[in-house]
């Protein structure tokens, strides 16, 4: 650790930023740490925002805040919340904030995440059209969900489908509009898309797949209908837009840091500027499991990459190698997936899709490269280890539900 290292600023006070701050202390760094966040809240978990907080708005989730506020005091981490960082002043060793203050910084970790994309169509800015990224968005959406309300969800990705399921569970009439030919097409195979489509239809969601949104129509500034590219008008009291995020690269770009689908970092989370590192949804890093660069958008990555960036900053880093992993809860189905779950040359089904609880192992050249499970969490634990160990199990044994998966890891 260099003697000159007295001040570390972390921009973005959510998962990656929060874990980075905690990890700096765990690694023994005893200088100043300032965690700067535009949102008013300390680091919290976003997964409940589209799930239990919409279904049960009156019950607070068991874990919302990553740490109690006392954690930051005990670890001498200064929180600067509710204020936006405006620029990185690298030569002046500081981060400048929107309120005019300057935070001294010998090193900076950017954990700025992403901005939810809005709809760029006529009427896209009407009232009761929401994106879902933060606590305020979730609360606003939850307040609109009541039996019989017409909810149109735009986007059949993870967030869109979770909102659709939650709204349906609250008794709303739900329609989903997805422009791609199938659901969650970036992260699952056509077979899984078909399973999800059927599951949502069976629960009464109306699925418009392969159609785009032409425009939104309103009255008195409030949305009333969504018009699809096929000319259908869908009644809407509430529209939730779940069409992905744009990585928040403004600060990095402004400081001349190399960007391109996120902030470009190496395996040690280092950007093109030596004093600045990046982690979480915003970081674009080579991934050894996917054999390409990837910008992962999930909890596991945000927390572990945040901690990895902290270790790397202190010179204790190892090349970061995270197996991509995500989960999603939709109705009673618990979907979990790890590794490469789209491209493969063999997909081995274990269990029956019709039963609503099954697992799929994805093999390339005989090696397990991905695993997906619906309501079979135990199989994910074994499957992840197969991917990490490049296992080459006998496909017939994988498919046989009576086999012990742990014995197939090898």
């Amino acid at each position: 650790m260099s003697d000159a290292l007295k001040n570390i600023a972390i921009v973005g006070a959510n998962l990656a930023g929060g874990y980075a701050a905690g990890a700096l202390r765990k690694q023994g760094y005893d200088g100043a740490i300032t965690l700067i966040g535009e949102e008013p809240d300390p680091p919290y978990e976003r997964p409940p925002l589209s799930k239990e907080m919409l279904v049960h708005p009156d019950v607070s989730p068991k874990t919302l805040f990553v740490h109690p506020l006392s954690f930051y005091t005990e670890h001498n981490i200064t929180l600067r919340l509710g204020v936006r960082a405006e620029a990185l002043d690298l030569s002046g060793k500081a981060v400048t904030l929107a309120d005019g203050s300057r935070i001294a910084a010998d090193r900076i970790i950017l954990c700025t995440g992403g901005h939810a994309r809005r709809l760029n169509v006529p009427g896209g800015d009407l009232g009761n059209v929401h994106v879902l990224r933060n606590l305020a968005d979730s609360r606003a959406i939850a307040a609109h969900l009541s039996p019989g309300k017409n909810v149109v969800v735009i986007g059949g990705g993870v967030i869109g489908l979770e909102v659709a399921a939650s709204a349906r569970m609250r008794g709303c009439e739900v329609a989903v509009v997805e422009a791609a030919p199938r659901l969650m097409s970036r992260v699952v195979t056509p077979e899984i898309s078909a399973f999800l489509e059927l599951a949502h239809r069976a629960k009464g969601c109306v699925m418009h797949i392969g159609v785009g949104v032409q425009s939104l129509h309103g009255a008195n500034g409030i949305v009333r209908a969504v018009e699809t590219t096929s000319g259908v008008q869908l009644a809407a009291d509430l529209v939730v837009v779940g069409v992905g995020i744009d990585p928040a690269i403004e600060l990095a770009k402004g400081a001349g840091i190399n960007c391109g689908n996120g902030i470009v970092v190496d395996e040690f989370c280092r950007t093109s500027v030596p004093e600045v590192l990046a982690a979480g949804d915003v970081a674009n890093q080579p991934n050894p499991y996917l054999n390409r660069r990837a910008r992962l958008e999930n909890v596991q990555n945000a927390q572990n990459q945040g901690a990895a960036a902290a270790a790397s900053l202190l010179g204790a880093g190892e090349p970061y190698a995270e197996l991509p992993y995500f989960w999603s809860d939709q109705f009673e189905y618990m979907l979990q997936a790890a590794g490469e779950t789209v491209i493969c040359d063999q997909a081995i089904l274990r269990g029956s899709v019709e039963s609503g609880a099954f697992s799929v192992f994805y093999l390339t050249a005989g090696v397990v490269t991905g695993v997906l499970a619906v309501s079979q969490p135990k199989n994910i634990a074994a499957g992840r280890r197969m991917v990490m160990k490049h296992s080459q199990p006998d496909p017939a044994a994988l498919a046989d539900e009576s086999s012990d998966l742990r014995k197939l890891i090898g």
Partner: protein
Amino acid sequence: MAFVKVCTVGDVPLDQGLRVDMGPEPIAIFNLGGEFFAIGDTCTHSDWSLAEGYIEDGQVECTLHMAKFCIRTGKVKAPPATEAVKYYPVKHDGDDVLVDLEGGAYT
């Protein structure tokens, strides 16, 4: 100290867990290479049974979001959980596994 029988040795296969709901909170009994341990069964992150978890290197990994807990102490070994579960004293009487259900404590 009131040790009660919660199961027999044969009920918990090697490197597996068993959920027992007889005391103030459900507990998970683990068999680590023939040695038995008991910790609180409910993951402190969300509500999920740790007895269902994946056991490796003396730790149990919650199968929901992959938090890890030390089976001997109940301490958190990997996020997203941040709070420990309790550990419980365990005794053997022949083939019976006995746990002090009132004796749960944090390390």
